């Protein structure tokens, strides 16, 4: 099939939102399809929002491919007779975060009118699709609640899960993800003050938030955790990441109210390692079930510390949970076979 893949981007900002698009492109080609990918600019500034949306609506891609797959908003606004949407998140600054500090609009009549306009616009674009998929239950529920649109959950797989191996577990709990406030690496560091076993913590990841990085370093220093906590702050290569994950005792991933389970959870599972998460982490709970393929604790340092100690103290059980995590991948159909089958149906 000839497939157009369209998504939005902010120039020079790279990250999770691009992996799903780039990996899908590669996989579609592997499966024998012809693909053309477009990243179209979009920013959330209120002053230019309607102009930007208009640009998307005015584009004409209808003559060019058998199917259009639209991913990051507002790509679902594009017009095509065979449009399929893989919806990954709302522009939340205009939805559920519109009344919070993360709002993209002022709390005023104008602001509310803009939110209403975006909602109408999103709903219209989504209604035109022949199928709508979401990357998690969390997003599926929001899509119904905010836009009245039904959708099917389609979990995004790793590009190359086979690259992750399972080695004998060392003493480390590993955290590999972007180092940002809402990923809450500080919770993990704080937990290490209360562990009673010789378990260790390694935090890996690049950050765009220098202040948060400093905060983590200061925490380690102030609490005297230098022997227990390793901070590898900065970009690490895929190979090194695979090494750390393949050899760890378990992974820890505790973002606040995340949209989906996150690639870190999946990477650990591919390496047959369980993940510790918290009950307020959002989408991770669609993957992790307490005691089965990982642990779910309260989002406070002492509870997390207990979880770390348990993972360390009960190694056999930890390894078993790791194997179960790997089986979860298949059980939830987090495979490219399934994804491409559904997107091109």
């Amino acid at each position: 099939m000839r497939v157009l893949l369209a998504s939005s981007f902010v120039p020079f900002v790279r990250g999770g939102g691009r992996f799903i698009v780039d990996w899908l492109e590669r996989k579609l080609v592997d499966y024998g399809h012809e693909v053309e990918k477009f990243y179209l600019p979009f920013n959330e500034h209120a002053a230019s929002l309607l102009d930007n949306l208009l640009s998307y609506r005015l584009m004409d891609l209808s003559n060019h491919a058998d199917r259009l797959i639209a991913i990051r908003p507002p790509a679902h606004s594009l017009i095509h007779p065979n449009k399929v949407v893989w919806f990954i998140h709302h522009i939340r600054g205009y939805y559920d975060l519109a009344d919070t500090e993360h709002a993209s609009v002022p709390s005023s009549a104008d602001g509310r009118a803009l939110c209403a306009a975006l909602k109408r616009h999103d709903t219209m674009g989504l209604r035109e699709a022949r199928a709508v998929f979401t990357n998690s239950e969390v997003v599926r529920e929001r899509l119904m609640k905010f836009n009245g649109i039904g959708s099917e959950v389609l979990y995004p797989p790793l590009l190359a899960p086979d690259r992750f191996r399972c080695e004998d577990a060392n003493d480390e709990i590993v955290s590999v993800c972007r180092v940002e406030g809402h990923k809450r690496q500080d919770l993990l560091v704080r937990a290490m003050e209360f562990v009673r076993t010789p378990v260790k913590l390694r935090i890996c990841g690049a950050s765009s938030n220098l202040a948060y990085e400093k905060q983590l370093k200061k925490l380690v220093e102030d609490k005297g955790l230098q022997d227990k906590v390793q901070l590898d702050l900065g970009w690490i290569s895929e190979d090194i990441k695979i090494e750390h994950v393949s050899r760890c005792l378990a992974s820890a991933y505790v973002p606040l109210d995340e949209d989906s389970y996150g690639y870190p959870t999946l990477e650990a599972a591919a390496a047959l390692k369980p993940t510790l998460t918290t009950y307020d982490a959002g989408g991770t709970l669609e993957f992790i079930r307490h005691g089965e393929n990982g642990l779910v604790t309260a989002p406070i340092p002492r509870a997390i510390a207990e979880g770390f100690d348990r993972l360390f103290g009960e190694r056999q059980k930890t390894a078993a949970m790791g194997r179960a995590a790997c089986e979860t991948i298949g059980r939830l159909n987090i495979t490219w076979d399934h994804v491409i089958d559904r997107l091109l149906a």
Partner: protein
Amino acid sequence: MKVLIVNNAVPFIWGGAEELAVNLDQQLNALKGVESEILRIPFAWEPKERIASEIILNRNLGIVNADRVIALKFPAYLVQHDRKTIWLLHQFRQAYDLLDAGRSLLARGQDDGIIDAVTRADNACFDAAQWVFANSPVTRDRLQRYNGRKSEVLYPPLNDPDLFEPGPYGDYIFAGGRVGESKRQHLLVEAARLAGNDCRLVVAGPPGSQADADLLRELVGKYGLQDRVTLQLRMHSRKEIADLARHALACAYIPFDEDSLGYVTMEAAASGRAIVTTTDSGGLLEIVKDRKSGFVCSPDAASLATAFDRLFADRALARQLGAAARDLWTSKKIDWPTTLERLLA
């Protein structure tokens, strides 16, 4: 410094401008302190009533997080940015010179509204841009003639100059480039027929159509030129082309009224080979000077045959003209370091 390269795009079509954008991106990313990315904006100009929408959508696409924009073609160059460089490869010629030549989808009278919209949009855009370059004197002159706007000529360099180092002089004339009617390789084959017994000609390039390939093969067959003329009518790798150019006695390139210098010309000159061309070949004459860096013949087989004979009879002349071609080429400083310096001034 973040530099966003902006180009239009037709899904599943990939040509010289796309190659140039990719090479410009690579060159910019190799510069210290510079990060570059390519934005490709889908462009559909049929039905012609769409053209006004295209103008609006491109003007409205907000560009954030880029320090500079380098835009190449209509209508993508209409994107607004306060530090925009236009490196003009293409205006919408259907509204300008193709219209005058009666080869446009637009017609004067009934489509005056569209023609007017394009002209106004262009005029305003070129006024607002900080820097305006054109890829050839022809492009520059068209912009002056139709829009009254000035630009500086900035030729796109060879993307892989290291491949084209001069080699020992061989015993064939190399005719590279796409094979087709406007490139007139059939005239070169006719010339080989009229030339003396020493003459050897290698025609290597992808045929535009089966008919183009058949024509050359028929000529070779009809005149029994199998010993003199080698036809390699297919895509070649860059290394294959470079090897053919670098080891030729001389090169021949006789397109009708080419807009620009022509990559074939640049490759020949870089390889230190004399170039045989015709009086009506257009932009090549900037590099090919009669009896200084090659031969400029009248566009007929006899005249070309005379030039071939001279080269085969006097190899010292072939070397001398070839060396002069390379000197003239390098003196023009059409290279990436110079080009980047001018683009980022």
